[in-house]
């Protein structure tokens, strides 16, 4: 197989595309093509070692590199790695720290741990983006880049954010689990993320097999395979290794040699294909918006000033139409939300009555002799009856709230790009073109249509970039609405993993999403409030009056609890409706505004004939190139 020649063709293809993009001065797309091309030109396959914290990722990495010390990938008894380290072969040792703010600094190997460990770089206060390390590592193929990653699911939140940003850049993954512990929810979620990033090849590796009996390892593997099968991951083989033994020098006995052989085999047969696929998908994702903008510009330039005037009028008219349409959707949402809140409130009030009367009955029906005992049990009884009544009610409400959000998302007018660069609005009534096409320039610029037209890789790269910009903040404080809406599809995918309540099953980033939290948290939030309010029951009053006292205290307690739910929580829930609508509305208004101003400016700055000719030529070439490149999944629909 002639790998180099294949890449040569791809690179030439990308270079031509880049030249074209360059003439338009689109720095973002050009930069992305450059990076993708550089990665392909280096003919370097990115293999990332992923796993939960403390599974032995760095140890394995050192062993794969053939290192005898842990200078390159520091190891510690506590969770160590806190940053991405990209490791490649070179004749001379070199380590470069790339900081978030763009600075780069060369450091000796002995100082690597000062940048990539939680111990020395707590909460990443040094602002490290990644470490690039190269050296004459004996175990490393020259065209393989190994990547060490922070562990998932540790108490260090920013590690998960870093992982999330990096995963789409991997070509294949070594997924490391431990024989010591069964697969857990965090690991399934990590795997889910790998799949979402379109990474096809996963080497499943089970570490620390030397520390458990043969039978235990056997059981663990069978258990893991069965579990993975259930979420649709078919595992051909679990490599058994002892990273520690390998690090100490025993590659054969540790099973790492066999793993390396398998990786080598895979690379020999598939490297070119996988790299080319990932490269093309990256390039197409980068060029897509340029094509759209160009096509749009050409169509708009062909129009006369009066035609543009008409288009503008049409847009304004459509805006009014959208306005009424979205008013309807908003009102429907408001109604659904209010209904859910009403039903919730009513159910809570009913529950209050039921609990009050149940407990009153219980207290009055208790024989005088058993009253002391009842007094002791009462807090528990009260709590469990609150649980029994309130949790199903809360669940029902959460479900209706989720459905309302989902419906809002589906029914709300959405702008996208049509096949000819015109802006299309999709509403309940159907799809209408709202501008001829000039608005498309703005539309492309605001990112409309990218998600619709781009491949899965495009969206994940876009998402990853966004996260990389502000690794921790993105996870910590997303906006309410984007939170809600983006949670939903993930939830439905993860539903089979749910361990009782939806929130438990959310991936790390999603758990931090605020709607359910703002709504006073996951199912069971009722308990939280009640614990705080638990007012003592066992006042030692005379036996005769104890019953009355108990009834009184119980009543008081129930009143307080429900008062809090009815006044604080439900009020907050009712307010939430406005917040969600406001964000959706602002989003659409901003897009429409930008399109309108784009049409206005196209009207004012008309391209000359010569310019137009140039643009047309460029579009034709781009079209040709995109259609001509070996065509995988992300074919361009726009210019066909």
């Amino acid at each position: 197989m002639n790998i180099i020649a294949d890449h040569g063709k791809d690179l030439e293809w990308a270079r031509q595309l880049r030249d074209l993009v360059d003439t338009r001065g689109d720095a973002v797309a050009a930069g992305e093509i450059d990076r993708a091309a550089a990665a392909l030109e280096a003919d370097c396959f990115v293999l990332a070692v992923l796993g939960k914290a403390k599974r032995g990722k760095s140890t394995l990495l050192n062993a794969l590199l053939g290192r005898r010390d842990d200078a390159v990938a520091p190891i510690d008894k506590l969770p160590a790695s806190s940053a991405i380290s990209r490791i490649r072969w070179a004749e001379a040792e070199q380590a470069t720290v790339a900081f978030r703010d763009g600075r780069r600094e060369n450091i000796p190997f002995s100082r690597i741990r000062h940048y990539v460990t939680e111990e020395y770089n707590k909460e990443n206060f040094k602002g490290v983006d990644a470490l690039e390390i190269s050296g004459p590592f004996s175990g490393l193929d020259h065209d393989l880049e190994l990547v060490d990653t922070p562990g998932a699911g540790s108490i260090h939140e920013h590690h998960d954010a870093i992982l999330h940003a990096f995963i789409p850049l991997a070509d294949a993954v070594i997924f490391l689990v431990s024989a010591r512990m069964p697969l857990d929810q965090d690991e399934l979620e990590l795997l889910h993320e790998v799949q979402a990033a379109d990474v096809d090849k996963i080497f499943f590796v089970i570490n620390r097999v030397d520390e458990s009996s043969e039978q235990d390892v056997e059981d663990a593997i069978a258990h893991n395979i069965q579990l993975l099968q259930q979420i649709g991951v078919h595992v051909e083989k679990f490599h058994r290794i002892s990273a520690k033994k390998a690090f100490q020098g025993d590659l054969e006995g540790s099973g790492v040699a066999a793993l390396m052989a398998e990786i080598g085999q895979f690379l020999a047969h598939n490297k070119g294909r996988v790299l080319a696929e990932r490269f093309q998908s990256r390039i197409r994702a980068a060029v897509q918006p340029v094509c759209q903008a160009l096509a749009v510009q050409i169509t708009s330039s062909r129009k006369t000033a009066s035609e543009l005037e008409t288009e503008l009028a049409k847009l304004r008219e459509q805006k009014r139409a959208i306005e009424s349409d979205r008013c309807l959707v908003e009102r429907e949402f408001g109604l659904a939300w209010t209904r859910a809140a009403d039903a919730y409130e009513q159910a809570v009030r009913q529950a209050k009555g039921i609990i009050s009367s149940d407990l009153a009955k219980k207290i009055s029906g208790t024989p005088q002799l058993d009253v002391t005992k009842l007094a002791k049990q009462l807090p528990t009884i009260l709590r469990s009856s609150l649980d029994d009544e309130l949790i199903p009610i809360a669940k029902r409400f959460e479900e209706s709230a989720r459905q309302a959000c989902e419906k809002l998302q589906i029914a709300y007018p959405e702008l996208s790009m049509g096949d000819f660069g015109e802006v299309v609005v999709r509403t309940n009534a159907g799809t209408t073109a709202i501008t001829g096409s000039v608005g498309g320039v703005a539309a492309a610029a605001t990112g409309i249509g990218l998600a619709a037209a781009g491949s899965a890789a495009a969206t994940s790269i876009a998402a990853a970039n966004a996260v990389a910009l502000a690794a921790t903040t993105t996870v910590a404080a997303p906006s309410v609405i984007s939170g809600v809406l983006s949670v939903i599809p993930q939830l439905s995918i993860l539903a089979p993993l749910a361990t009782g309540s939806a929130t438990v099953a959310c991936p790390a980033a999603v758990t931090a999403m605020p709607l359910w939290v703002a709504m006073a948290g996951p199912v069971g939030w009722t308990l939280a409030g009640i614990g705080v309010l638990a007012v003592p029951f066992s006042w030692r009053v005379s036996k005769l009056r104890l019953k009355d006292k108990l009834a009184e205290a119980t009543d008081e307690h129930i009143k307080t609890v429900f008062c809090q739910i009815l006044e604080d929580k439900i009020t907050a829930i009712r307010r939430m409706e406005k917040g969600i609508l406001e964000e959706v509305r602002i989003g659409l208004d901003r897009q429409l505004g930008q399109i309108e101003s784009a049409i206005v400016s196209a009207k004012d700055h008309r391209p000359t004939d010569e310019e137009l000719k140039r643009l047309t030529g460029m579009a034709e070439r781009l079209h040709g190139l995109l259609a001509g490149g070996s065509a995988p999944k992300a074919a361009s629909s726009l210019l066909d």
Partner: protein
Amino acid sequence: MHDQDSHDLTRIVDSLLMLVHEASEYQAEPEVRAILKEAVRALVGARRRLAVAADRYIVAVVGLTNVGKSTLLNALLGLELAPRRNGPCTAAPIEFTFGNELCVTVCYRGSLSRPSWRCEDVEAVHEKLTSLAADTAGRTSLALQQISVKAPVPLLGNGLVIADTPGFGAAQLGEDAGSHESALKSYLQNEISQVFWVVLAEQGIGKREKNFCDEFFADVCDDVIVTGAEDWEANDRQRFRQRYADAFGNRMPRFHFVSGLKGAEARRAKDAEALEAAGIPMLESRIRELADPAGRLAAVQNSLHQLAEDLTFWLARFRDRQRQPLRVWWRPDSWARWRATLSNHPLHKRLTEQLQVTE
């Protein structure tokens, strides 16, 4: 004698709880309210311990699946009962109580009958537990609620119960999803006096398990048992504490570094020195301290003083920061009521002095 003490202490905690709770409703500043609410939470925790102090005192050993809870219990109790890893395990807690003869009793959910088996030796107990797990695996209709094991172990005197709880955290799919955890949650919330949280030294503490702790047992957990720490130097142990200290905020538990495996071996070999090295006796004495009714009361008293001190310190600092010379912290009628209850009790006197400073 001790009943009287416990009775008085209960009354003091109750009336303090009312005082603070009413103050938290009475104060207008959100910041002050929040602090008072936190104090209420602490008091509720103290109250929860006192409520069970008189009867049974259950220390639950809680942790992720496979961190070595059962091994640790082997080391503590000297019983070889740990089930096989990855094999079927019960979703029910196993309570160990004192009895002159070995005996296994089983409660099923929603059933009156409680079958019980007398066992000749520890081996037989182990077999019984294994077969119970195998019998009930996957049969939700026959839900085991609880298993009790009576054993002649001196540590279990004084009404102390040590409970081995099902591990949480392992991925579960299908119909069973969450069944283990929900059973565990209800047990932790309703019956437990004290939690020993077992974590594995080499795994550290993960986000998910910390959340689980916060949600279900943070208020009754003062001890984190770090197992598998046999080769950890003092320096490493210190770093472990520091690394996870942030996660606990101001409710820092004690960390005990032990080796369940080495301890169980030493117990078998009757090697006192090795047992000591594994940290087991230290843990035993901590359990005895908790199990001793007088010690428990003393612990609650201490925590009340600590709370009163922290609270007055915070309130005074808040007052100084606001530059308001005089502030009324307590609702006057609550304060009067507090003054009236058990005012002769030495603990009450001291607490009153402490809390009065802010008046």
